[in-house]
């Protein structure tokens, strides 16, 4: 399996503090990967680098078959290349309807001129309905998303990510604040998504990760400490000492 995302030798320094230290990481085109690590291990900074929010001081980030370098690109260009990101807190456009939110996210030309003259086709609308039905928001298409419950917003955001049709999905603590039933549902969704694309999940909850049943990368002080199956890494003495031992 060739790698979809290849991060090698990346370092970032904030005011003398090395947030990411010579980090190398790669993920295949259809793979589910969990990233764990203590606070400050650089998980969020790693996602910031991949999505173009933070520029690394050194290293390379390449993406896709053509090994496109993501370093010279801005957030929007990277997103258009097919990198989707879900934040920990649901961020949907509360002032707009569920349908408008989904149409915004739908894969389509993004330039102002094209958007100005864009008229949603029937197929687009059908796709929006399908997505909404899938996450249980089919009856709420015309409601303002600000009126939705917290859980419904989470689902709306997931539906928006799906509408974007990303090739790489970065998910930040998806299970936070969810009921057990919702977690189960989320797990199933992530596992099925990973059949067609790369999914990176950052999570603290070991139980959740165990259910994902995938390779795990452990970050510590900005670089990879261990990588392998969950059982493999939980046996690693280093991992136990820096992370599991404390938790």
């Amino acid at each position: 399996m060739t790698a979809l995302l290849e991060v090698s030798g990346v370092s970032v320094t904030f005011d003398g503090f090395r947030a990411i230290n010579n980090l190398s990481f790669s993920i295949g085109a259809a793979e589910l990967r969990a990233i764990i690590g203590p606070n400050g291990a650089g998980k969020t900074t790693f996602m910031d680098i991949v999505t173009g929010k933070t520029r690394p001081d050194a290293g390379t980030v390449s993406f896709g078959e053509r090994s496109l370098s993501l370093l010279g690109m801005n957030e929007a260009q990277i997103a258009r290349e097919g990198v989707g990101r879900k934040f920990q807190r649901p961020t949907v456009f509360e002032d707009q309807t569920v349908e408008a939110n989904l149409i915004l996210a739908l894969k389509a030309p993004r330039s102002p001129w094209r958007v100005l003259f864009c008229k949603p086709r029937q197929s687009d609308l059908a796709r929006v309905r399908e997505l909404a039905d899938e996450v249980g928001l089919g009856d709420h298409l015309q409601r303002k998303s600000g009126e939705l419950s917290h859980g419904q917003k989470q689902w709306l955001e997931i539906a928006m990510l799906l509408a974007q049709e990303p090739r790489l999905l970065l998910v930040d603590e998806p299970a936070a604040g969810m009921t057990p039933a919702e977690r189960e549902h989320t797990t199933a969704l992530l596992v099925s998504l990973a059949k067609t694309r790369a999914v990176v999940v950052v999570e603290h909850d070991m139980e959740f990760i165990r259910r994902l049943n995938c390779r795990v990368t452990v970050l510590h002080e900005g670089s990879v400490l261990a990588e392998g199956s969950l059982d493999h890494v939980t046996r690693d003495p280093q991992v136990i000492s820096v992370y599991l031992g404390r938790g």
Partner: protein
Amino acid sequence: MTSPSSVRKYPTGGAGGVKPPAFTDSPSLFARNPSVLIFIACLAAFTLAVTLMSEAFGAGVISTSFVKTLGKTLCLCLVALAMDLIWGYAGILSLGHMAFFALGGYMIGMWLMYARTEEIVVTALSQGGLPATPEEISQGIATQIFGVVGSSDLPLIWSLAHSLPLQLSLALAVPGTLALVFGWLAFRSRVTGVYLSILTQAMTLALALYLFQNDSGLRGNNGLSGLQNLPGLDGTSQDIVSIWFFWASALALGLGYLTLSWVVSGKFGSVIRAIRDDEARVRFLGYPVEVYKLFLFTLTALIAAIAGVLYYPQAGIINPAELAPIASIYLAVWVAIGGRGRLYGAVIGAAFVSLLSSLFTSGRLPDIAFGPVALSWVNWWLVILGLAFVAVTLFAPKGIGGLFDRFQNLRTPDRKGAPLGPDDGSLQEQEAQQ
């Protein structure tokens, strides 16, 4: 993409049920936004009423100067529309749009003044016995126009002033280019929020200070004057000209309203409101936020310039004071009082506040006596306006437009205590980081 069909529907969502009609099901702009039709109808009725009451074509109930005031107000409404698009919809509080408005006015003013002076100079020279040569004419025009700043050469920037079409294209090109360059610089370096506001204010101030110089080529603080006299129309009285401009202003406002309604109603409107509410999130959806902002900034600058082109021939004079930063602040005040984020709110605000302003500052209202102290409206109007503005910001962030919501008994979205308004995007961005 293949949908993850193995996933169950979200448990809490009720299966089946009648789907409410989606907004994209009704294709017509008017059907989606009945307010557009209502607005156009009101504007047409108003135009007809003013025409029928004017001195030129009707009963003469309304004086010519008041027709001009109304025409100017329509232009201010148009620039307020532009402000609403950039601020109310896209959340960019520009304090520079009156600069674009005045630049448009300067550009049309250059043609008006040049052509009018040319007529006068040719007439004067033809009485000298010999027909005038082109050199004599241009020398005469330059002396006439620039004598007041102690110069007799026509600056380079006037080289297109002889031609109406060329100068009209400049009236769009100059503000448009300025907006494009400034916007590119500002948005490229991700200047947002209050920083952007202050930067646009600085731009306005720089431009005003530049124009105040005598060697700016635009007559320094004298500005351009006599713009109400249209070249070649000596025989036509101002009564008629004022109605023409009133019609043109009403037409421009109507077209502007239609265009902007169309712009904000579709997916584009959805994108820019999304930018207002959470810029970072829109970026992660793949939209080039900076390009959108630049597009909007330039588009609204062009609309402001068109409004200026129509406004200043009715005002008759333009000088650098028109570009003072305070003018753009008043523009923001109008839109805020009218209600931002809805187009008719901007129009109502601009019309209401600017007409009240001209009423209170006209000096025709009697003073109010508080015992021995008489308070004159002229002196206290700005105090009232300033405090009213504070009150609107504090207690009625939706402005006058908010009243319409009450009439229609529309429920406002429950944002779970999150503040309304365009600027909380940056906060969410910060939260998203944590």
